[in-house]
């Protein structure tokens, strides 16, 4: 099995892009030279001048189709008004389609520019040869090659025939940053027109001839096995075609979605309970508490914890973080068509290549016989890195020998997620008499991600690396304590645990940043000044395989201090809180939150009001500042939902089933969000989909402490916490 990081970032490109491969099917077809110019997987230019860009990452709202297109179009000097996108299927060459770990931009940045630079060099060479001039004397802009000395110019469309005959160069020079015209500009989402007219196609919008519609009854508790069932009440419903037991449960297949849902409702299968039928999350939290009392796997150790120095203080606290659902508005679904020895799938998935491989294995056919066509995704947030929906749809299509769309209902989606992990954190810190933090201990007790089962012996050959991977936000603490000890205390669960927006980081960052506030209080220091002071010393610090750059973290903290009015009194009845984080060693984010208490509490709403979130971001090279702002705005709402809802388990099953019992943040709860981007001095962009999530939550919780004087050490926040 692959490592945690590799799982999340399994869409990372290899070290070199193989040029010259031509895709078929969902990619670019082999072009006759006279047809169009397809120098590599990513670019096709036709004689009319339309540039088609293959998009090899999955769009789930993070704006990746727009930003990847910007990267290629800029380096290619394409005419942005004549760019079309083609979403790549899992056909030859497209082996890096999986999308996660906030790594689409970081990982695509170099290979896509190399591909575009090669294409641009070929177009220039084609024009130069026609004009009898040196390629180096030609320039490109806006889909046109020019030769300034002679005043000649030719559109890319006119050059495709000649360019297609040229060899693909390696090492074609890429643009200098100053020559970029799209990267760094505010570009609106390329899919917006199709979204606002209803033309955009998500997974559930796939319609293929002869397709059937299916719904799946799942086991009522962990590990329950399907027993006997009477299919007649379902078959009596008009439109129901079949009742089919598959490995995931009992499927009802019909001519329409509604008939399938009604047929399902008519069934009452018997189940044989498994050994976890009584499992509940309240007891799990007790187990996590007990696990903290015994030694875990050390994930970082510097110095040795001793007694508090003279005049110093020891602070201890325990933080609780719940299970969470992804709850995307488009529930899990997949449309599959299995025919003799082949399978086609249409799926809103973050992991097309994983779906391809696992479905091939399930059906016992070669991977090349499985093609996954990714659709737009109605919210991903990590849930769709798993491919359970694809496996179920493929199995069902094979049994039916017909194309079938499997819909998970909202209830299915909420209760059968691959949840965000619950955890308990035991923190112990020491400040000396001068108010400096000197020692830090952070124990995290939690399950491990288990989408592919528990870790194997191979995974655990280097247990420290493995558990570091599972504890972003714990072992990579950026602060300069002379003594640091972090550990992971594993408790296995029957719950499926998988990536959620910001993966391992939200719970750990919540505990760490709230406890930093507790230490600041103990030290009698301002929480923002205390953090800055604890980021002095070495400018970079190594933690596991990561390098934390304290200068960049200080800069974002200083920026939110300036922009939020930190240090000046907040408006009457309001208070501020701060938090910061370095996400996976890459994107640096700080927030100042401003909160108050509402005059009246409303059921289903947060028991406090967040007025303003001031955010500073250093994500390296910025592709699309508009996209950066949107991801921060979304992350703030994500954090509010995190403070509002939880998944609990009782009798071996999730207790929540809808947006009524898992309420997410609403429009009336939306604060003003200000985003300040630190100009990058580097040459590498980093992700923005997840990094703004983890520090948003503790910034708000710390503001609530400043307001009420109460530490909130258990999420979600309840009205009683405000009193």
């Amino acid at each position, binding site marked *: 099995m692959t490592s945690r990081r590799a799982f999340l970032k399994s869409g990372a490109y290899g070290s070199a892009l193989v040029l010259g491969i031509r895709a078929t099917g969902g990619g670019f077809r082999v072009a006759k030279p006279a047809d169009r110019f397809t120098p590599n997987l990513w670019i096709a230019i036709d004689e009319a001048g339309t540039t088609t860009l293959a998009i090899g990452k999955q769009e789930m709202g993070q704006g990746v189709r727009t930003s990847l297109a910007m990267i290629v179009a800029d380096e290619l000097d394409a005419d942005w008004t004549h760019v079309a996108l083609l979403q790549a299927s899992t056909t030859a060459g497209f082996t890096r389609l999986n999308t996660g770990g906030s790594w689409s931009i970081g990982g695509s940045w170099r290979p896509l520019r190399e591909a575009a630079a090669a294409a641009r060099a070929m177009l220039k060479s084609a024009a130069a040869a026609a004009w009898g001039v040196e390629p180096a004397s030609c320039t490109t802009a806006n889909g046109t090659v020019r030769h300034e000395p002679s005043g000649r110019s030719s559109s890319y469309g006119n050059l495709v025939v000649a360019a297609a005959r040229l060899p693909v160069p390696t090492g074609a020079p890429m643009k200098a940053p100053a020559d970029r015209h799209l990267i760094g500009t505010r570009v609106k989402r390329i*899919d917006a027109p199709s979204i606002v007219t209803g033309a955009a196609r998500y997974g*559930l919008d796939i319609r293929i001839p002869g397709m059937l519609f299916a719904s799946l009854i799942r086991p009522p508790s962990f590990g329950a096995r399907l027993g006997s069932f009477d299919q007649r009440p379902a078959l009596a419903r008009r439109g129901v075609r079949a009742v089919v037991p598959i490995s995931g449960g009992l499927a009802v297949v019909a001519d329409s979605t509604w008939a399938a849902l009604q047929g399902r409702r008519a069934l009452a299968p018997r189940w044989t309970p498994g050994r976890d039928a009584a499992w509940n999350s309240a007891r799990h939290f007790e187990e996590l508490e007990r696990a903290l009392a015994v030694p875990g796997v050390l994930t970082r150790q510097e110095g040795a914890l001793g007694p508090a120095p003279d005049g110093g203080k020891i602070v201890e606290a325990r933080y609780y973080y719940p299970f969470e659902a992804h709850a995307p508005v488009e529930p899990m679904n997949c449309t599959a068509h299995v025919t003799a020895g082949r399978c086609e799938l249409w799926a809103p998935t973050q992991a097309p290549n994983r779906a391809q491989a696992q479905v091939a294995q399930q059906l016992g056919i070669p991977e090349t016989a499985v093609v996954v066509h990714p659709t737009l995704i*109605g919210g991903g947030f990590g849930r769709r890195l798993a491919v359970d929906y694809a496996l179920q749809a493929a199995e069902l299509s094979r049994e039916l020998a017909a194309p079938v769309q499997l819909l998970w209902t909202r209830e299915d989606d909420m209760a059968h997620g691959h949840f965000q992990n619950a955890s308990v954190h035991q923190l112990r810190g020491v400040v000396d008499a001068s108010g400096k933090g000197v020692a830090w201990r952070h124990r995290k007790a939690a399950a491990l991600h288990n989408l592919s089962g528990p870790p194997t012996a191979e995974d655990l050959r280097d247990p420290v690396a493995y558990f570091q991977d599972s504890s972003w936000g714990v072992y990579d603490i950026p602060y300069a304590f002379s003594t640091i000890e972090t550990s992971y205390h594993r408790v296995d669960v029957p719950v499926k645990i998988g990536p959620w927006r910001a993966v391992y980081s939200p719970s750990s960052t919540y505990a760490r940043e709230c406890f930093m506030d507790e230490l600041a209080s103990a030290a009698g220091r301002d929480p923002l000044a205390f953090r800055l002071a604890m980021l002095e010393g070495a400018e970079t610090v190594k933690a596991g395989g990561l390098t934390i750059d304290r200068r960049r973290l200080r800069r974002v903290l200083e920026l939110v201090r300036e922009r939020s009015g930190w240090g000046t009194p907040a408006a009457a009845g309001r208070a501020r809180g701060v938090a910061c984080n370095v996400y996976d060693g890459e994107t640096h984010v700080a927030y100042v939150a401003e909160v108050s208490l509402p005059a009246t509490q409303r059921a289903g709403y947060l028991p406090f009001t967040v007025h303003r979130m001031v955010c500073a971001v250093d994500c390296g090279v910025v592709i699309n500042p508009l996209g950066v702002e949107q991801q921060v*705005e979304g992350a703030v709402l994500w954090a509010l939902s995190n403070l509002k809802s939880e998944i609990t388990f009782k009798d071996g099953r999730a207790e929540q089933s809808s947006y009524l019992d898992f309420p997410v*943040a609403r*429009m009336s709860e939306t604060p003003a969000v200000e985003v300040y981007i630190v100009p990058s001095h580097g040459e590498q962009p980093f992700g923005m989909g997840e990094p703004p999530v983890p520090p948003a939550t503790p910034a708000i919780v710390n503001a609530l402490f400043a307001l009420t004087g109460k530490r909130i050490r258990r999420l979600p926040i309840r009205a009683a916490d405000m009193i």
Partner: protein
Amino acid sequence: MPISLSVNGRRHSVEVDSDTPLLWILRDQLRLTGTKYGCGVGACGACTVLLGDIALRSCQLPASAANGKSFTTIEGLSGDGTHPCQRAWIEEDVAQCGYCQAGMLMTVAALLKANPHPSDAAIDSALDQHVCRCGTYARIRRAVHRAAASDQR
């Protein structure tokens, strides 16, 4: 039961069970997939359509009640994507994943008919039972104000 209904100015006759929600008639029978399924219990708003000038949740309207009525879906909000709300949505770059936006747009179209210049509170009140998991609410609010300002009708 056989029912007839008008959607986006076109008449349709379909044969469905009387309890079939309008949502599934639109999506499965009429192949108008712009109207989205999100929860099936009226809690998310993704399936919102217009009945005349009234916004309603199509997952909650059975075929028996839809019979003989005229509806507008996102596909019919304008012929060409130039409804003031659609233009404002693009100007404010509202959508992230976009899945909930059809429902948002239909509710806002109805809101602006009833209240051409809504306050923030009126916008919140109209949209507070719509779920956007990507968190686009602030941009939606701005787009509603923009649409209200641009609508010269």
